[in-house]
């Protein structure tokens, strides 16, 4: 008998109540980005996308659920505000393309929502909250392969915490955050978690 228990990535709740860490001590947590920092980073990324794609005419923003999709919507709103162009925003779920599906309980699916005109011949900007091993992005590239044929694919991430396991890099980075592998990075967004913040949690010795 196996249950479908669904696990979210570990971490304290947004209000910041903690239990003791694996070493018996309280884990050391600090906010690396607060709401104004996140807003500024997204504003800069939106400008960079406009600059790099010369006006974002062919751009489609595709967020990786859950928080990447929210960030993609925010970037879309900013680009519209700055240039008056409305660019298509969607999401691409990567669950069915993960390379670690057999390493845990079965995962629920997120939404894949493509703009009505699809992604053929467009410049797709993938949006995710944290870039770490690069495996999520690899899965997203595989998923895109089944969804259409974009002219090019770029990657935007709010936080790049390093420790890549695949030859993948981001085109737009909100914040480069040097971390230890034992640490955890958790992104909170207003629309989902009720507040904007990026927290770095010390994992303790393993």
């Amino acid at each position, binding site marked *: 008998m196996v*249950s479908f228990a669904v696990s979210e990535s570990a971490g304290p709740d947004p209000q910041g109540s903690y239990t003791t860490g694996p070493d018996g001590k309280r884990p050391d947590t600090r906010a690396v980005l607060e709401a104004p920092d996140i807003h500024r980073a997204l504003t800069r990324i939106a400008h960079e996308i406009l600059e790099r794609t010369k006006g974002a005419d062919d751009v489609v923003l595709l967020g990786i659920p859950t928080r990447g999709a929210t960030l993609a919507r925010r970037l879309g709103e900013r680009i519209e505000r700055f240039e008056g162009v409305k660019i298509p925003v969607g999401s691409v779920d990567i669950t*069915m393309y993960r390379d670690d599906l057999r390493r*845990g*309980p079965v995962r*629920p*699916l997120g939404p894949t929502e493509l703009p009505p005109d699809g992604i053929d011949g467009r410049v797709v900007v993938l949006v995710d909250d944290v870039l770490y091993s690069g495996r999520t992005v690899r899965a997203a590239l595989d998923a895109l392969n089944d969804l259409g044929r974009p002219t090019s694919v770029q990657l935007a991430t709010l936080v790049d915490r390093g420790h890549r396991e695949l030859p993948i890099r981001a085109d737009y980075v909100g914040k480069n955050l040097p971390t230890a592998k034992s640490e955890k990075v958790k992104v909170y967004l207003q629309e989902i978690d009720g507040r904007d913040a990026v927290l770095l949690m010390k994992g303790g010795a393993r």
Partner: protein
Amino acid sequence: MNRHLISAGDLAKDDALLILDTAEELARVSERSIKKLPTLRGRTVVNLFFEDSTRTRISFEAAAKRLSADVINFSAKGSSVSKGESLKDTALTLEAMGADAVVIRHSASGAPHRLANWVHGSVVNAGDGTHEHPTQALLDAFSMRRRLGGLEGRKVTIVGDVLHSRVARSNVLLLHTLGAEVTLVAPPTLLPVSIGTWPCEVSYDLDAVLPKSDAVMMLRVQKERMNAAYFPSEREYSRRYGLDRERFAKMTDEAIVMHPGPMNRGMEIAAEVADSARSTIVEQVANGVTIRMAVLYLLLGGETA
């Protein structure tokens, strides 16, 4: 949820909703030009069919193939079973071939349950005798939810040969779990003795029930299982329990008509009702592939126990 899917009654509300929500996401795969996901690469699904079935078998086959699983079809005709091999020996053979899931259709009620004790993989009941057909119930619930919005408090009427119908039993159990109110309408001779223990209402008057129904599911009159006279004549059955144009007009404008197929047009359902815009009969087939993809993903997608 269990490792197996044998009865719709085994599904808790959360499990059933997870299957329906997963299917909702997977439905979009069928609309893409590349209708395939790599998720179950290297997994083997065996379709073990001891009873004739076209739509259920190809539906499971399509579902498994869209998830990139390898599919082995095993039908009793022309196989070792016709040489007298027992179910257990067949099961052990499949086990030795490395089946991760066995989809079984059998004329004996309870065969999937027995099989589940003999194999390590997941067992999916694709219809056992007059007992259950859980994936049919799931695809029916999915079709209703897509058309009606939700199932909580909805009134579903199931009409016809309940006695021989595994579809009816699975539907009553699942729809009850999902909060719908089910009414069975049938001649007394085509209701099982134990009907009082089912979580549903029973009526013998179709015309009284129709105006209050959000969905009406017509069951096939299963002549192949009828070894006695359950009703005087086909014409009388059709007159009292068939869904013809006049009865169809008594339903509300939003109510939908369902049928698990294959249909006896002119018997339990009139052709023009079956082909109307409020009939979900063709959708049910497409939804069948989607719901079976969801079931196979949820049973085989995670770590192996």
